[in-house]
């Protein structure tokens, strides 16, 4: 592996920063016994994720990743047991697939060290990790879990639970370009954005953006160069920070107004909670790739890697996804914070920073924002850490293209904002997959239930016919 331990270390840093921020945020978000439980779970989640990142073989990796999933399941089930169940089942299935791949690797190559997996077994591991990374088609658990979970859990989910999947794919990939990852990544990027534009639930919107941003990382991993890998890692770190920040600020919004529905929010949060608004802007600029924010640097690296290999279709798809991202964050910012104007502001109610608890929660967000801005202003820190020479982050063409994307997005939003405000949802493609899957075992279940009629003669008939079937099979297939 190119980076060996730096890669693990890199992800470990991002999960540590996020966990600390979330621990601070818990102080504000929860009360009493629940806070203690969540602090405990957050620490457990952090420990398990470190374990997964430094695991030597796939088995141990899966064990730790499943511990992370279990802890997050517990967190989600505080607010929504159904979403938590779907989340857990998806993760268990994914773990099983990874294990099949690992078993194949250990039998074929004699080792199941975390790294490339031979031939066809690679697909099992890839699909298993794909469920965790929300590849299109198997992403059905993600929007549900992210939006239903308590905000700190959403931040953790988006911040490093899905990143463990990215980490696995990064370890899995050899340095050959893989067109399948490029295709999957671009589909994810554009699909996530399109779905996000249709949401009016603020956290669901963020959840679909997680899908979209994961698409950037998957595409970058598919490039197959060192630069692409570095870009993916950088974006993973940046995304952990700014998406955590965005989730936490939307969580503040939710706590303050009692809703996260963009149609119901008063749209005057900018006056009610100015500090949160500023932090939200930082996060939104970062995810849009505005120069000087972490998202800019990582996206530049990814695009540079794509251009270097001449993969222009993917490049343009990602640019289009970038425009969509800008539009949808304009929507979130406008309807969440600005549309109501100053007159909508609640007179006399302040953001509550005076209380020590309120400022604690705030501190968690400030950490993330500081990280985002720091990474944005000094992008060479990370690329230096990954031993990549990537001069000219702030070259005029990079800045120009990102500014173009941002202004295009803002312009389009200005034109269509009334259309977006109605919270139209469009068709629910693929998200109902869970419900559709459920029908298959249920149908079989009903057939089998019918067999349990309680009549002995029927049971004995079944025994006789099964015996005959076995006899015939054996008679037909003897050597």
């Amino acid at each position, binding site marked *: 592996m190119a980076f060996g331990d730096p890669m693990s270390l890199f992800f470990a840093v991002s999960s540590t920063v996020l966990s600390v921020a979330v621990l601070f945020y818990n102080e504000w978000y929860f009360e009493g016994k629940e806070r203690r439980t969540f602090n405990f779970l957050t620490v457990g989640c952090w420990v398990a994720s470190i374990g997964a990142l430094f695991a030597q073989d796939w088995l141990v990796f899966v064990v*730790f990743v499943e511990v992370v999933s*279990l802890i997050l399941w517990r967190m989600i089930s505080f607010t929504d047991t159904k979403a938590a169940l779907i989340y857990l089942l998806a993760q*268990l299935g994914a773990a099983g*697939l990874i294990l*099949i791949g690992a078993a194949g690797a250990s*039998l074929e190559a004699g080792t199941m060290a975390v790294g490339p997996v031979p031939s066809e077994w690679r697909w099992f591991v890839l699909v298993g990790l794909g469920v965790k990374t929300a590849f299109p088609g198997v992403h059905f658990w993600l929007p549900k879990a992210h939006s239903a979970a308590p905000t700190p859990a959403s931040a953790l989910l988006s911040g490093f639970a899905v990143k463990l999947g990215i980490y696995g794919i990064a370890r899995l990939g050899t340095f050959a370009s893989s067109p399948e990852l490029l295709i999957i990544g671009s589909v994810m990027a554009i699909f996530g954005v399109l779905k996000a534009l249709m949401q009016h639930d603020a956290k669901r919107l963020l959840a679909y953006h997680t899908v979209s941003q994961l698409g950037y990382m998957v595409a970058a991993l598919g490039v197959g160069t060192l630069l692409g890998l570095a870009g993916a890692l950088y974006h993973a770190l940046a995304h952990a920070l700014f998406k955590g920040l965005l989730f936490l600020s939307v969580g503040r919004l939710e706590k303050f107004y009692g809703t996260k529905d963009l149609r119901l929010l008063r749209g005057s949060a900018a006056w009610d909670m100015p500090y949160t608004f500023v932090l939200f802007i930082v996060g939104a600029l970062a995810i849009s790739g505005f120069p000087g924010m972490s998202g800019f640097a990582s996206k530049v690296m990814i695009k540079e890697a794509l251009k270097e290999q001449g993969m222009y279709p993917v490049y343009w798809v990602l640019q289009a996804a970038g425009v969509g991202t800008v539009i949808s964050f304009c929507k979130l910012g406008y309807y969440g914070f600005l549309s109501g104007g100053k007159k909508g502001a609640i007179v006399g109610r302040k953001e509550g920073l005076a209380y020590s608890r309120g400022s604690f929660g705030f501190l968690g967000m400030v950490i993330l924002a500081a990280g985002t801005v720091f990474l944005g202003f000094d992008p060479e820190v990370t690329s230096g850490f990954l031993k990549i020479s990537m001069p000219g982050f702030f070259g005029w063409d990079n800045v120009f293209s990102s500014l173009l994307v941002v202004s295009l997005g803002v312009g389009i939003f200005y034109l269509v904002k009334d259309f977006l405000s109605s919270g139209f949802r469009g068709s629910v493609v693929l998200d109902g997959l869970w419900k559709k899957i459920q029908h298959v075992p249920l149908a079989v279940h009903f057939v089998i239930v019918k067999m349990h009629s309680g009549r002995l003669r029927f*049971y*004995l008939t079944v025994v006789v016919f099964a015996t005959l079937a076995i*006899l015939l099979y*054996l008679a037909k297939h003897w050597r």
Partner: protein
Amino acid sequence: MTLVLAVVFPLSCAFLIPLLHLYGGALLRKFLPVMGLGTLALTLAAALSGFNDYALSFFGGWPARLGVVFVVDSLSSIFLILVAFGSGISLLYSYDRMGTGPWRFYVIFFLLQASMNGVLLTGDLFNMFVFYEIFSLTAYLLVSYSLTWQAVEAGLKYLVMGTVGAFFILLGAAYAFIANKTLNMAALAVSLPQIPKATLVVIAACMVVGLSLKAGAFPFHFWLPDAHSSALTAVSALLSGVVIKVSVYALIRISLLFFGDPLPTVFDVITALGVISLLGGHLMAFKQQDIKRLLAYSTVAQIGYIMIGAGMGTAMGIGAALFHSVNHMLMKSGLFMTAGHLAEEMKTRNISHMRGLFAHRKGLVLAFTVLAAAIVGVPPLNGFMSKWYLVMASVEKGNLLAALSLVFGTVISASYYLRVLHAFYAPGDGPKKYKDPRCPLAVAVVLSGCCVVLGLLPFFYPIGDIFAEVGAKALDVKNYVAAVLLQ
């Protein structure tokens, strides 16, 4: 000598209990623990005597070809250990719950214990059938012991189905005898490859069907949910944890000895039955409302796991099946005991009515949680490890269907065990009277502790290799034959 004693001691206990009862209950109360401990010790001694090398015991000094022989190798020794501890736990539980009041119960119990040891020890096919008959009759009686109409009906169903199974076994044994003029299993292992294939196919079909009926594999499982759910709590734990494992042993032993070389397609049949049981059992448990029936269907599914491992016919597969058998004994005994106890206290077996238990029976519910997580296959627990070995074994054999169905089973079982746990942890009225359930709690804690330990141990100590070695020894038919016939 220990081998014979492991059968004779529980047998004589069963005859002594009525006598002791005649002399008054106090005597029985004192002697029952001694009998239980004695059986445990003798079974373990028999197991350990043959763990590394073959231990043999010839009846009346006749050579194996003519007389009856008891053989212990590592395969049967693993199952003897399983039986010793499983029925020990069950005896402890019933002694604590019922005292020595129902003395007839203990008579049947020790008869069952003796016959299970007999099946595991014997090296003679017809002798095995005889022990199987004792074993089945006592199991029928134990199921219907509570004499509620459900229990009687379940016992009757078990009787009819079980007799059909026994006749299949008898038929197989008879054909084997006609074809080879011997009943010794080692001698049969030598001569069966020479008989016409058609005869061998009939013997194989009879044996596989009879034994999987006794083990409760899917299309033959219809007696199992009734029998395991309507019996007393301790009996349910014994039946699900231990009794069906004896049939699993017989299936592994007979299929390896008789059909391993001449008819390898038998293993495909066993694998197929395993996959079908896994899917069918899990899907039946999926929507089950009665908690003990849910656990019983889960047993059908777990038998499927074990049969998948056994059907691989490789050292790794048999090792995984053995490990899963041991784990399933721990998990399912614990689950039946905790759930049965909670259901008795709540006076309902309906899951949606068993609410609010966490507030009132914290220890039992926590132990149940650990055990359920283990049986689902949540990572650091033993169920996960044995499923991992099973996945390894099926991948090694190139049987991806089995591996995928193992994954699918995990997902389904997580969904239904979570349904139970949601009910337990939901707020609601717990049991009215607070009575400290000391013994069930202790048993549940010990069993769940074993689950955690066995789950973590493979990361530090190669348990899988030990079991795979046992599997390799069981596959080594030549060695078995040499040990028995050349003695």
